[in-house]
């Protein structure tokens, strides 16, 4: 029995990522914070599909009347990972361009747009 431990761990990851977003000023570290939140959420998704003593949900390999874990969350997680790749790549690309213009990655100094 593992109970709710996976969910708690995922929430801790999300909280850690948020803390990174709030406490770090470096733009790259902010992106890393977002990645940590994202991993927490993805793990949460996978964890929702867990079934006690379940096996991989591939019908052709499964013994008859076997318990399988839910396949949908895994498909969702895969989609979400791909989306995460796109957003991360875009954010890092913008960070590079910002650095090229301003020669700094300190978020407190990248505030041309304010007020």
């Amino acid at each position: 029995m593992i109970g709710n431990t996976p969910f708690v761990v995922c929430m801790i990851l999300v909280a850690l990522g948020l803390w990174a977003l709030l406490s770090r000023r470096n733009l790259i570290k902010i992106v890393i914070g977002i990645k940590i939140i994202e991993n927490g959420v993805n793990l949460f998704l996978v964890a929702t599909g867990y079934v006690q003593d379940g096996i991989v949900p591939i019908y052709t390999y499964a013994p008859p009347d076997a318990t399988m874990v839910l396949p949908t969350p895994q498909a969702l997680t895969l989609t979400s990972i791909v989306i995460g790749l796109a957003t991360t790549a875009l954010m890092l690309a913008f960070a590079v361009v910002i650095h090229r213009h301003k020669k700094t990655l300190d978020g407190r100094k990248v505030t041309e747009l304010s007020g």
Partner: protein
Amino acid sequence: MNLAAHAPILAIAVPLLGGFALPLWGKIHPSLRNLWLALVASLTAALTGFVAVQVLTTGVQVYTLGASSPGETLSPGGFPIRIVLTVDALSAFMGAIATLLAVVAFTYAWRYLEEEEGKTLALTLGTLLWAGMLGMAFTGDLFNLFVFFEVTSIAACGLIGYRTWTSRGPEAAFKTMVMYTVGGLFVLLAIALLYGEYGALNLAYLARLIQGTTVDRIALGLLLGGFLMKVGAVPLHMWAPDAYGEAPAQAVILLVANTQTSLYALFRILFTLYGGVADPAIGWLVVGLGMLTLVVAALMAVVQMDLGRLVAFGAVSQIGYMLLGVGVGLTVISSQPAFGLVAIQGGIFHMLNDAVAIGLLFLAVGAVEKATGNRDLGNLGGLGHDLGWTTGFFLVGSLALAGIPPLNGFASKLMIYESSFALSPILAALAILASILLLAVFVRAFQGAFLGPRLASPKPVPTAMLVAMGVLALGVLALGLFPELVVRHLVEPAAKALWEGREAYLRAVLGG
């Protein structure tokens, strides 16, 4: 094959695939690319229009992906296992707004963007954003809502930061992307919670199951957080002036449409998904945020010296009116349905009016920037001598937005004032105060930029840009002079779809 039944998915697929084909055509010749874009855009517009007509004449349309027939939403076990598109009157209304703004944006972009600035890629991103918006409007599935949410986020941020040779564009894009991604992750977390509890992702199926347990409430909180961020409700609006101010003008009006699509998704969640456990406290939360958005954004607009940023704060403030109208509706609809319906109608009618009027203003600002290379109110002046049409369009847009009769903003604002007055007179007073502030802001901007003696000699504005602005200006006038027709034929069905039509929405997917 019955093509008509496939119209909802085709409306999403055509711009998605057509958009990715644009760079290929661009490699051969720019004029081929333009031709292809015109083809894709007109086909998508026709499909969206067709779906809207179908919905308004025959009721909610469903489309099941991968089923042997599009109407077969349920698997043999009576469970909606496939991805379902569900288009009701509100979705169709939202799709129509997105399509109108997208077509205008592409007309404008034809001469606004320069070939050497990477026009092909900007057009591609614009088409993808359009596809994402239609997807958000038409989907009947929570996870697809998240996917299209992210599609629009990525395309929108690509457009915001598209001028990489300036330092401001990428900065705005980075901030917006961070906000969009964090908001999107909250939405995904909420979807995971709902999936974990009910084992389903279909909106209609979940709507029938939701009991208002603690997990449901946490999921609602996360969904509200994510979508309120993308809508740009104060205090989550801070990305919006950055993004609206720095994106190229044709992208800004797509961003406006994107914001409104997110507003649509918010309403869909509040009314359709959580309508069974509707709670006046949440209505008051939406009303409160609407008021805050109205007043704070209007105040911030007063001191802006950059024309683009000034109009951007005006755009944020308009979101407040929609939140106010629909929030009042959500608060009272279970006790007084007739009163609630008028409030929701006001909010939804204002979505269309705002899309047209603020779109016109942003396009006029883009024309000023293109003609003079300058947007600082301290340096502009006397543009009315040379840019006659643009001056007229800016005036029409700003008066409409400030709610001056007989232009379109007045009709919807009147509905919102009256319904919020019935809930609490303070709300109506503050809403009118914000309108007055906005009028002052726009008079100031108009006088500063367009009146006075000639200070510089601007370049003429290309005809395609004037045509795009003219379409929206005509829209402002038509919506202002014939509000009753629009409300009766488009807005009322859309408003009814939220509350009275909820059962029809569920039945269209689940049967019975």
